[in-house]
């Protein structure tokens, strides 16, 4: 009959004392500088190619404005060009070289690239042994013989997992912003970025395209990355309930996530693969009009598929955990 907060405190403490989150932060601190260095090299390369970037920007603005007055350009394309001209004009006015990244654009592109593999792996480091470690060390016998109902213990673990997933995403964005800022500068929050592209068949529907700031874009990205990371976490949570060995549960989930990345590249003709959770993990593709892995996938579709998988995993986790006999 202990209160739920105390149980959550227990679980949070255990993950913390196992130094799992410290490992995640350590990995970020080692890897992000590597990516920052790579990005710096790309920026330097661009600088060598385009010596006078202001002149180049002006030229692009003129080209696009001319195209707007032309009758041969379809109406919906004009909207997109208007948006583009707005962005270029902003860059020119604020003396921003679009080819040089800043900490905000670097963080956003890092988040987009991390959603498919990097973030899921970090999440697995915590989720995979949340329940299975209690079983492999035998502490589950102490945990489940206390006067607390089993579903409350599992719920406290689930809430703890949600806390740490959120923390991982915030930490990823924070480390990437702080480290890349050292090189690229901490500016860029108010720069515009264009969203609202929609794929209609083979055409891009630009009717809803509009500019938002990079800062708002980062929040949107973090929200989508959080959702996809939570689905991975909940599936790993279920595997951790079903499998006693932490290694087995980690490998199972890693295989699932990696095969999703492989399938995304080859499954465009296998239509029903779009109902698998692992090809839907990269939710950020929808924001800027990149084609989805399989035809007919939209943001709403992917959110729904992932949601169904997560709910099913939760049902299985709770049903098994509350009924199962602890035989060893």
């Amino acid at each position: 009959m202990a209160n739920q907060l105390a149980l959550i405190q227990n679980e949070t403490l255990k993950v913390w004392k196992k130094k799992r989150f410290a490992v995640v932060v350590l990995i970020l601190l080692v890897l992000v500088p590597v990516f920052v260095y790579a990005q710096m090299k790309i920026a330097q390369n661009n600088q060598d190619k385009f010596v006078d970037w202001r002149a180049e920007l002006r030229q692009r603005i003129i080209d696009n404005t001319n195209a707007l007055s032309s009758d041969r350009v379809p109406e919906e394309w004009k909207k997109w060009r208007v948006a583009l001209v707005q962005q270029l004009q902003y860059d020119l006015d604020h003396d921003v070289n679009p080819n040089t990244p800043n900490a905000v654009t670097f963080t956003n592109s890092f988040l987009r690239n991390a959603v498919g593999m990097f973030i899921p792996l970090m999440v697995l480091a915590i989720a995979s042994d949340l329940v299975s470690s209690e079983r492999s060390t035998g502490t589950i016998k102490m945990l489940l013989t206390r006067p607390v109902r089993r579903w409350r213990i599992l719920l406290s673990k689930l809430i703890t997992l949600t806390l740490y997933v959120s923390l991982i995403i915030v930490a990823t964005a924070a480390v990437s912003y702080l480290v890349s800022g050292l090189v690229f500068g901490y500016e860029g929050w108010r720069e515009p970025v264009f969203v609202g592209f929609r794929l209609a068949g083979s055409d891009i529907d630009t009717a809803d395209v509009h500019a938002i700031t990079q800062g708002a874009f980062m929040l949107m990205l973090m929200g989508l990355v959080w959702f996809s990371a939570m689905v991975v976490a909940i599936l790993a949570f279920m595997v951790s309930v079903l499998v006693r060995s932490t290694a087995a549960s980690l490998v199972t989930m890693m295989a699932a996530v990696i095969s999703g990345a492989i399938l995304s590249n080859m499954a465009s003709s296998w239509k029903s693969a779009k109902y698998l959770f692992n090809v839907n993990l990269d939710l950020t593709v929808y924001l800027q009009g990149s084609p989805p892995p399989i035809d007919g996938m939209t943001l709403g579709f992917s959110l729904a598929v992932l949601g169904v998988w997560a709910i099913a995993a939760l049902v299985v986790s709770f049903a098994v955990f509350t009924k199962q006999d602890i035989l060893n």
Partner: protein
Amino acid sequence: MKLVRDEVVLSVERVSKSIGRKPIIHDITFDVRAGEIFGFLGPNGSGKTTTIRMLVDLIKPSGGRITVCGEDVNRAPERALMHVGCIVENPEMYGYMTGWENLAHFARMQRDITDARIAEVVEIVGMDARIHDKVKTYSLGMRQRLGIAQALLGAPKLLILDEPTNGLDPKGIKELRTFIRELADSGMSVFVSSHLLSEIQLMCDRVAIISKGRVIAVGKVEELVSQAETYTLWQVDDPDRAIALFAQDAGVRIVGESEHRIDEALIASLPGAIVTAMDPSGASGWVERFVAAGIGVQAVHRAAPSLEELFLKLTEGEKVG
């Protein structure tokens, strides 16, 4: 709060368990009363651990009912387990936390356990010196103490210990025995499982004996033990003549080496001893007869039956009845 003696703290009624289609536990029934040390005796693989796990809701019984202080363990574990402290098999704790952190962790899972209470149980088990060290640095004996401290946190009415002497040295076993007796004297019921009859004899008031998933006897330890034959071992300087004398008496049976299952350590300490089954009260008469016959008596020893023999005796009775 003292409990009234004879009040039933743990009641196991017609409990059975099948895993898959295989029945593991058959219809077992026994009660544990307030303030008694109750032994649960059976060889390895007899269903002891499965039964203990059912007592604390780790395994759900297929049939029957288990209640602690009147609360059903499987239907209302959050109320029933409030009165139970237990160590199932080894006292496994979180190695990456200190002893104190472990106790605080389990204290948070129950109501109204203060830091003062944690400090109190730490003192009871005598762990003050090492309580702030990481558990992974503890010896098995210390983990055992920490496990008992954890079990005592909620001032339970029933303490369940599964093979508590496993891995302890003789001194530790003796201390544990005294400790358990003190707990029982304060009104707590203690349920102790073991596969060693001698341990149960030294520690327990009453015992249930389990074999192949069935409880074959429940009762006072001495009463059960007295049902099986005891042996009298004779070490004399002229065994051949002694055997000849024994053979003349119908009340004495000489037991061959293959017939008895006396502890090997005892046999080794009395090399060449003649093993007899006789009325133990006649032993002093025999010493006089040997002395009169000029046979030197070096040692006379009464040996308790082994658990196996007790089993044979009890199951034999079952067949006849």
